């Protein structure tokens, strides 16, 4: 087991290097001269050149990348063109709100999606199954931001039950979390259903029934464990989807998270901020995938067995 964890940890390094290279390459490609942008239009050409020299912008690409990595390890991923404050600082300040939103949303998606999918599978082609899967299909077809706008329209403008913006109180968190959770909820319930359907057709389930086991025990003790394996994978992947959805959801509900930070930075063409945010999201997503893979090995005895001897 530990060998597996260790091996999986080793995979992270090339991925981090890859993401940082991609982000740095993109940063390098952005239009405009960073030195000029920092000094403003009024600065003279010589002072811009001096700053370029000082910032190392005249060095070869790979040398600049090496310096970027060195700084990034120490938590410095550049300064914002607009506010001049360190990108890492602003990103970390915005992250808790995004994390809270994402965790709230994934909880809704798992707590409703998994039982819904499993019930749909057990009662395949029933009214519940059809209605749930119909809603699931609509759920994955709806743009998140449109759903957010519709919820604002219904619950804020017409009914007045929830506030339309802010992210401090529980009531303010409900609408963004519901909005963000919807596509994940839809996907999780679809996967749960098909995974369960696959498992209940296996011979060992038939065997359990043949022995005379009561139905709920067949499902709960025999089927659920194996049905969970693909569900865990998809939940992990959904976390990436949640980070994407969070960008637009935060923009709709004015949640002060990384998404809003990105959108604001895009509007003001603050490239270090945009790409710093992207770097951060990439790193977080990789770490989540790591946790999911380890969890996966924990649930799936086949992976555990492969690393048991030797």
């Amino acid at each position, binding site marked *: 087991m530990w060998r597996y964890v260790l091996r999986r940890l080793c995979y992270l390094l090339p991925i981090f290097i890859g993401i940082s290279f991609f982000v740095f390459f993109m940063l390098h490609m952005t239009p405009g001269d960073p030195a000029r942008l920092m000094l403003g239009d009024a600065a003279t050409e010589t002072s811009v050149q001096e700053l370029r020299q000082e910032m190392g912008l005249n060095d070869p690409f790979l040398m600049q990348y090496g310096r970027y990595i060195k700084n990034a390890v120490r938590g410095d991923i550049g300064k914002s063109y607009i506010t001049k404050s360190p990108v890492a600082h602003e990103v970390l300040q915005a992250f808790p709100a995004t994390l809270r939103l994402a965790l709230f949303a994934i909880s809704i998606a798992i707590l409703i999606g998994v039982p819904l999918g499993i019930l749909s599978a057990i009662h395949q082609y029933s009214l519940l199954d059809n209605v749930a899967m119909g809603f699931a299909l609509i759920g994955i077809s709806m743009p998140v931001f449109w759903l957010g706008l519709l919820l604002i329209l219904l619950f804020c403008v017409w009914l007045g039950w929830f506030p339309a913006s802010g992210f401090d109180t529980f009531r303010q968190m409900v609408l963004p979390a519901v909005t963000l959770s919807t596509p994940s909820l839809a996907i999780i319930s679809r996967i749960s259903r098909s995974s369960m359907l696959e498992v209940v057709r296996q011979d060992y389930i038939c065997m359990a029934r043949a022995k005379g086991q009561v139905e709920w025990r067949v499902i709960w003790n025999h089927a659920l464990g194996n049905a969970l394996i693909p569900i865990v994978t998809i939940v992990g992947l959904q976390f990436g989807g949640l980070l994407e959805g969070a960008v637009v959801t935060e923009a709709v509900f004015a949640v002060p998270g990384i998404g809003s930070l990105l959108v604001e930075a895009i509007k003001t063409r603050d490239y270090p901020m945009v790409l710093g945010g*992207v770097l951060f999201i990439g790193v977080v997503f990789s770490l989540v995938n790591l946790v999911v893979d380890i969890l996966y090995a924990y649930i799936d005895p086949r992976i555990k067995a492969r690393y048991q001897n030797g």
Partner: protein
Amino acid sequence: MAEARMSGEGGKQYKQSGLWARFRKNRMAFCGAIMIMGLVVVAIFAPLIAPFPYDQQDFMAAQEAPSAAHWFGTDEFGRDIFSRIVYASRISLEVGFIAVSIGMVVGGALGSVAGYYGGFLDNFVMRTMDILLAVPSTILAIAIAATLGPGLFNLMMAVGISTIPRYARIVRASVLSLRHLEFIEAAQAVGSSDFRIIVKHILPNCMAPVIVQATLGVASAILNTAGLSFIGLGIQPPTPEWGAMLSGARTYIRDYPYMTIFPGLAIMLTVLALNFLGDGLRDALDPKLKR
């Protein structure tokens, strides 16, 4: 699994008709296909269908509720929302299909080369794909679109590039499963070039999962495009785009909700139709049918 037993000349035709029958039996997929065809017709004949030009402003008739003259009402510049939605279908379909084509062609080429040659090349290509997959695709598209700057072409590139790894993985997996079968060995024995073997013998045999992925891919490309436009990347005004229309309508949500409802409905129906079609195709092409 009737077609597994079929062989010889009649086999192919039988297999295709079986596929068609299964597809037709799936009413949702059939509905989806018809809706998509309808949308393509609307996009092609947009100037004939839209009652007004998409950029015709009329400040005397700004923000009117839906009426006989303006079916979906007018926006803050007095432009007819129905006409703009009709014209915007062009952008969405264009971005959807071209972005998916970019992803499919580049990803397919990388995946088939990686799978066919294996070894270092395979490792290099697939590890690069892993890195791209390590960033969620919309975030990747945001990074690319923000760097390239706004515009339709850049948007297509951004959404297209972000889907490359998915196709590379699917095609590679299929190529690996075919690579050592007899008919490939036979082709090698008669001296076919690698290029010919990949294009003529391998790729046609791994199209099924790619087609399904592409159909669902157009759906997610359209969603992605709308999302990027919504946050200010991508299509610039006055060109109508569903996501950008929603972004503009947001300010007026309290007083003029219809401005928000119709463009979103257009996105949802389009994506829903593509998802119907993709699910139906998967059921029809998947030999391990769940039904």
